[in-house]
């Protein structure tokens, strides 16, 4: 019975495809894998026959008959095999109509919201085709079909009526579809891994359609992964079109506002730097991840208010070239200088444009004798792994700067494995968790605040999703030096930094308390977890750690 249910939903998926996909007139792929040869054009027929057979098999007589007396020829030809079975058991019954199942799928698809911005945008065309089916007894969906505004993982109740009812209602179970979606994505990745591009192509289309039937976070993640896989399969562009740093900064700003990950990163790193600077009169921070400089106001304020008064604060910001003739780094520096002036902290700023961190030479940085140096890197070091030798070069350059402390914030995941399928699986889990947490932060979590989500925060959420989507695209679709999102776990970074001559500095309990408090402020704060791991702080969503802050000093 279970197999029939799966095949029925499968049939509808394939039937959808045949209606508007003229090229695919051959044998159905998925059933072929199972060993059955069924022409795609016959699928509707086969499904109906299976339904009918199921109904007929409801009484025991039929089963025993089948088991003992029947002779079946060529069982791989499902269509005729079923026909022979049905005619043996019950020669006079009409085959039932199962058009209502198609309608329910259509309703689920429509209810699931707007089609994703991928090449699969056939929902409306699909519905029109359905109307053309000469069918009777189109059932309105009597069971509840959850709309996309509800949380992910909701499922329409699936019911299967084993009685020989001429109009069985088969409703697509979206939770089961969710499982199928994941399996399809994995199968597609495996096909890509094995260079079986034809199969991969079919699977990615299938996955695209399944993705539409989902709701919430699952749908968004699946859509991004489908798009990334499609890019990889079709080699749509040598690399995804390079966005201007200004746009990337904008996306990161929205990500900063929507969820606590970046804030957590900044606050914990600042706490480590603050403690390293205790009692020092002249301090110099070298920031590898300048962007908009959002990390530094909080540090400057903490320095301004520390007992004994603020030190002289010097900041060197390193960033990529702006591309549009504006000196973005310098502008950020001006704003920080304005803030420093307001809170009476002596401030000096220097911006360095570098295509890659590996181009940096410590001699350029004007390091002064009496200064205490801190080096800060938030989500920057992993990009160096794309070029061999780059990260070692940068770490030795950092050692030459003789920092009091090096703060590193990185994603806690291994997206740099040698095998594509492993990377794919890891990143699927990682980004699903991330999107889950985004979803709850938008809904005002916990139900305590309640109320409607303002359009502005929706926009923030969407921009954050785009920001993450670009990372997904890079992990899945790119290779070689273009693949810069080479995340690695804390253990891997630890061994790297150990061999480069650094040892870990424990982040104190102050950092832990501040981080916990910060997370408590966020809607959905119950889902976020701060964990301490050998002196490093990890921020995670429920049981999965997502980013790690660690601090290092020269051994």
């Amino acid at each position, binding site marked *: 019975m279970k197999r029939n249910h799966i095949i029925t939903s499968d049939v509808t998926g394939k039937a959808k495809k045949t209606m508007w996909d003229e090229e695919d007139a051959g044998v159905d792929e998925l059933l072929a894998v199972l060993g059955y040869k069924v022409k795609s054009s016959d699928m509707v027929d086969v499904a109906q026959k299976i339904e009918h057979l199921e109904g007929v098999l409801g009484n025991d007589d039929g089963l025993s008959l089948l088991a003992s007396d029947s002779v079946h020829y060529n069982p791989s030809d499902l269509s005729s095999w079923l026909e022979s079975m049905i005619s043996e058991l019950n020669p006079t019954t009409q085959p039932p109509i199962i058009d209502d199942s198609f309608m329910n799928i259509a309703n689920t698809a429509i209810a699931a919201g707007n089609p994703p911005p991928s090449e699969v945008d056939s929902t409306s065309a699909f519905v029109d085709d359905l109307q053309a089916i000469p069918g009777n007894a189109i059932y309105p969906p009597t069971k509840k079909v959850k709309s996309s505004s509800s949380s992910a993982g909701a499922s329409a109740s699936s019911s299967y009526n084993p009685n020989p009812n001429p109009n069985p209602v088969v409703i697509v179970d979206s939770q089961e579809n969710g499982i199928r979606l994941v399996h399809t994505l994995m199968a597609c990745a495996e096909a890509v891994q094995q260079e079986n591009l034809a199969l991969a192509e079919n699977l990615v289309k299938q996955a695209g359609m399944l993705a539409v039937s989902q709701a919430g976070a699952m749908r968004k993640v699946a859509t991004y992964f489908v798009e990334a896989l499609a890019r990889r399969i079709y080699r749509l562009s040598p690399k995804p079109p390079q966005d201007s740093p200004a746009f990337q900064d904008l996306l990161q700003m929205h990500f900063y506002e929507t969820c606590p990950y970046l804030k957590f990163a900044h606050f914990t790193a600042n706490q480590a730097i603050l403690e390293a600077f205790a009692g020092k009169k002249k301090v110099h921070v070298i920031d590898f991840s300048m962007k908009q400089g959002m990390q530094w106001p909080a540090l400057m304020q903490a320095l301004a*208010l520390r007992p004994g008064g603020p030190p002289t604060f010097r900041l060197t910001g390193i960033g990529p070239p702006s591309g549009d003739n504006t000196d973005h780094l310098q502008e950020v520096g001006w704003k920080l200088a304005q803030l420093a002036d307001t809170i009476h902290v002596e401030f000096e700023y220097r911006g360095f444009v570098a295509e890659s961190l590996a181009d940096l030479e410590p001699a350029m940085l004007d390091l002064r004798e009496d200064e205490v140096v801190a080096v800060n890197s938030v989500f920057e070091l992993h990009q160096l792994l794309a070029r061999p030798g780059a990260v070692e070069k940068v770490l030795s350059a950092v050692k030459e700067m003789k920092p009091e402390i090096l703060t590193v914030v990185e994603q806690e995941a291994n997206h740099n494995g040698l095998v594509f399928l492993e990377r794919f699986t890891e990143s699927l889990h990682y980004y699903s968790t991330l999107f889950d947490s985004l979803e709850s932060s938008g809904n005002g979590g916990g139900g305590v605040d309640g109320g409607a989500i303002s359009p502005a925060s929706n926009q923030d959420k969407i921009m954050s999703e785009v920001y993450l989507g670009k990372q997904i695209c890079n992990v899945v679709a790119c290779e070689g030096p273009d693949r810069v999102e080479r995340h690695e776990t804390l253990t891997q970074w630890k061994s790297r930094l150990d061999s480069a001559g650094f040892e870990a500095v424990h982040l104190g309990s102050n950092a832990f308390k501040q981080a916990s408090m910060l997370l*408590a402020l966020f809607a959905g704060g119950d889902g976020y977890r701060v964990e301490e791991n050998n002196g490093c702080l990890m921020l995670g969503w429920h049981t999965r750690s997502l980013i790690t802050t660690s601090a290092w000093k020269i051994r």
Partner: protein
Amino acid sequence: MVLIHENEDQVFHNDDDDDNDNGRFCINDNLDLLIEVLQRVDGRSLGSAACVCRQWCSIVRNDSLWEHLCFRHVSPPPVGVRPVVSALGGYRRLYMVCVRPVLSRLKRRRIGGGGGESEVVRRVWNQHEVELSLSLFCVEYYERLLVGGGRGAAAAGDSPASSLKFLCKPVNV
């Protein structure tokens, strides 16, 4: 708040000023007393007090009242904070933008929704909460600088910058 006024009215009934015709006490003539009273009320009441009349409004807008509101339960009161906070926009703004939402969120997490708004300020809050609020306040000021660069920081007005949106209640009270 109005109740206190009436009590004082009855208590000081005999100590009338020469200015009053019928010997009734008027709080507006004893502003030091008014300020003493206002130093003990919560944020919501301060806001209501500002709506009473122009004189009260100008008194309530005095930042030191809000400083008292922010830090009267923190012991020891943090030193050196005043110039920083004043420069970043003042204690009233600090309270509205950071302190009130932070305290109400943290209280809610701890107790789970019990108590009303007035309970929020009466609890003692600790060093870490102070530091966190100040940091968030500074970040918010910087964001207004970033956003309002061309138009001038004044254009941002009283609405908090977007980095603190997560603190705002979705429904306006």
